[in-house]
């Protein structure tokens, strides 16, 4: 594909992510931190986010399967997830985490289960989208162009 076209596609894709509420301006901040000293900053952070989130989601699932549910620990974990997602600007995930925390405080198992499913779902989406975006970027770089801001 043409370089210009690729770049345009990337910009459109990114814009759509913002419009649909998957990302917020925090992600823009992250991108502004990337410079020649730190060329892969965004990718590193996002990868770390993926690792963290997957670990946390697994632990949350396990916790909800227990007989006696440790809400406090769950709350702490959801808090972590919320922090991570807000740091990279994963807007929808962050919002779901807030709801999840409320359910945890209310000790509402049903709610928590439901919420966990939603979070997993959203996380899946955002992960796919971000990976596609990175692939696009990589293509542009391979084609010799620069990533538009």
């Amino acid at each position, binding site marked *: 594909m043409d370089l210009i076209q690729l770049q345009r596609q990337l910009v459109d894709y990114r814009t759509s992510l913002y419009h649909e509420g998957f990302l917020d301006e*925090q992600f823009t901040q992250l991108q*502004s931190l990337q410079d020649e000293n730190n060329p892969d900053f965004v990718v590193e952070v996002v990868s770390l986010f993926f690792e963290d989130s997957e670990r946390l989601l697994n632990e949350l699932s396990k916790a909800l399967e227990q007989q006696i549910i440790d809400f406090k620990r769950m709350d702490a974990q959801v808090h972590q997830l919320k922090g991570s997602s807000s740091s990279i600007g994963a807007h929808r995930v962050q919002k779901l985490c807030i709801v999840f925390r409320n359910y945890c405080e209310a000790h509402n198992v049903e709610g928590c289960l439901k919420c966990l499913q939603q979070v997993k779902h959203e996380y899946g989406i955002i992960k796919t989208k971000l990976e596609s975006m990175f692939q696009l970027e990589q293509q542009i770089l391979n084609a010799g162009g620069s990533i538009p801001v």
Partner: protein
Amino acid sequence: MESCNCIEPQWPPDDLLMKYQYISDFFIALAYFSIPLELIYFVKKSAVFPYRWVLVQFGAFIVLCGATHLINLWTFTVHSRTVASVMTTAKVLTAAVSCITALMLVHIIPDLLSVKTRELFLKNKAAELDREMGLIRTQEETGRHVRMLTHEIRSTLDRHTILKTTLVELGRTLALEECALWMPTRTGLELQLSYTLRQQNPVGYTVPIHHPVINQVFSSNRAVKISPNCPVARLRPAGKYMPGEVVAVRVPLLHLSNFHINDWPELSTKRYALMVLMLPSDSARQWHVHELELVEVVADQVAVALSHAAILEESMRARDLLMEQNVALDLARREAETAIRARNDFLAVMNHEMRTPMHAIIALSSLLQETELTPEQRLMVETILKSSNLLATLINDVLDLSRLEDGSLQLDLGTFNLYAVFREVLNLIKPIASVKKLHVSLTLAPDLPEYAIGDEKRLMQTILNIVGNAVKFSKEGSISITAFVAKLDTLRDSKAPEFLPVLSDNIFYLRVQVKDSGSGINPLDIPKLFTKFAQNQSTGTRNSGGSGLGLAICKRFVNLMEGHIWIESEGLGKGCTAILIVKLGMAERVNESKLPYMPKMPTNHGQTAFPGLKVLVMDENGVSRMVTKGLLLHLGCDVTMVGSSDECLRLVSHEHKVVFMDICVPGIDSYGITIRIHEKFTKRHERPLLVALTGNTDKVKKENCMRAGMDGLILKPVSLDKMRSVLTDLLEHRVFFEAI
């Protein structure tokens, strides 16, 4: 002779009687005709006559009568029947009219009579009114005289003039022969003739005061007629004349007036002077009631005027006295100032002179300590050092105190961190306290402002002194320091009636209570505590050292800060509480930026604003830690990352300028870390600035951060620009609290 219808009179006409009848009838007719004419004439002249129709009637009656008599003249001779019939008609008419008139008069005559009585009544009334008019006029005259007299009397404040004028005017108004004023003497037992009208310089007659007549006059406030033979009335040489009536009236002397200068014995009863008035002899004049009233009124006025004059004299005297005193005081003040200046000069010189050798001793002793010494020598040197330190402190204290006493010490006011003061005190006292195994706790009230305006150094000195005393005099137990903002009711019940706090908008009263569980103080000794050099001589305290000046100096400082300090203790062995209230100004929140994004430096994307600034980031969340690190790296900082509080404490060093801590993670005791970092770095300039990062916060959390000792607080998410401006602000002011 033809027979005619004539009627012959009964009597011959030549009869004498007939002749006389004829003449009488003629005159009657004449009179009867002239009467109505007269009546008409006079009534026409008079303006008022209510009975005109009566007049007409009367006139008719008279005229007819006259006509009858006139016609009767013809009947004396032979007359015809016509004449007779005319006569008869006239008579009949006359009869009718006269009967009517007679009937009419029955009505009219009583009316006329009553008019007469009314006239008489009115005449009497007029006479009476005339009399009363005369009386009123006389009274008015009298009133005018009184007013004029009063005016004359009150127009001057000189008592001689007042009295003289009174007598003259009274004499003139009432046309008196003699008028005199008798004043009570110094002893109060006699009346002395002070002023008279006619005699220029009255010789000092005196009359004993307890004369029955005089008593009678003094006992009533009316003017009393007295006998001319009374001793007070015998003013004129006895002549051959019949002396006129004499009246005496009392003049109350209001007790401020003292005519015969100062030492006047206090009499329990009211004192009076006596005014005697004599009518001219041989004039048969009597004292009228209105004249007596005039005299009474004048007497009262005179009393008032005299007291006014006396008050004026008093006040002039008092003013003169005050002026003298002022002059004396001024002199004394100037002498005192000279003395103080001399003392200050002396102290300044002595201070310098004393300090120089002291420094030499201390310096050389310290140096000696560093060298090789035998144990006894070391002990000796240590004692020398300790003593000289004590002496140096004493010299300083004395100088401070003397400067405090004459008010030449002034507070260095400035904005300072109140929480920091308490923390410093705590830090300074902790080592000693822990050696003595005393537990020290500090409680700062939530509403205590962090910044205040006042003299930081002296406040710290005072608090340190009190806390130090608490530690010094406690062998075991605990010491608790509480600080809060004093409310008005707590201010008022402080043990000082003369402490009058004034609340206003920019100031607040800080109340610090230091409670210890030490040896306590005998309540009787408490007042002496704040006096200079007074040491508590009870056992156990004699070894504590100290010069006894500390509390005195504290008290002076506290007074300068318009506050109050006192100590409460329940007794020996029961510990004691020192309470201190000082006035501090409210400081604006320092360095709080209203907008989170306010870059002080022009935004240069990509240009590093803080090259090589060493920072430490503590965040348990890996992702956000990485993001923060990225931010700071982008700004050129040298970032160290830690994931736990222990790691943080281990790695933090004085090279780190800022420590960013994420405090929104539950389970991290960020306040604990703050305190421990504070403990690790005692010197303020070595300690890194502690900034809290948090995703959500409220005022309480923010204040907790402030109180724990953090230097800043930022809300996440932090953008690049925000971080840049935050760091700039932080490094410039060493504080940055984002506005919530």
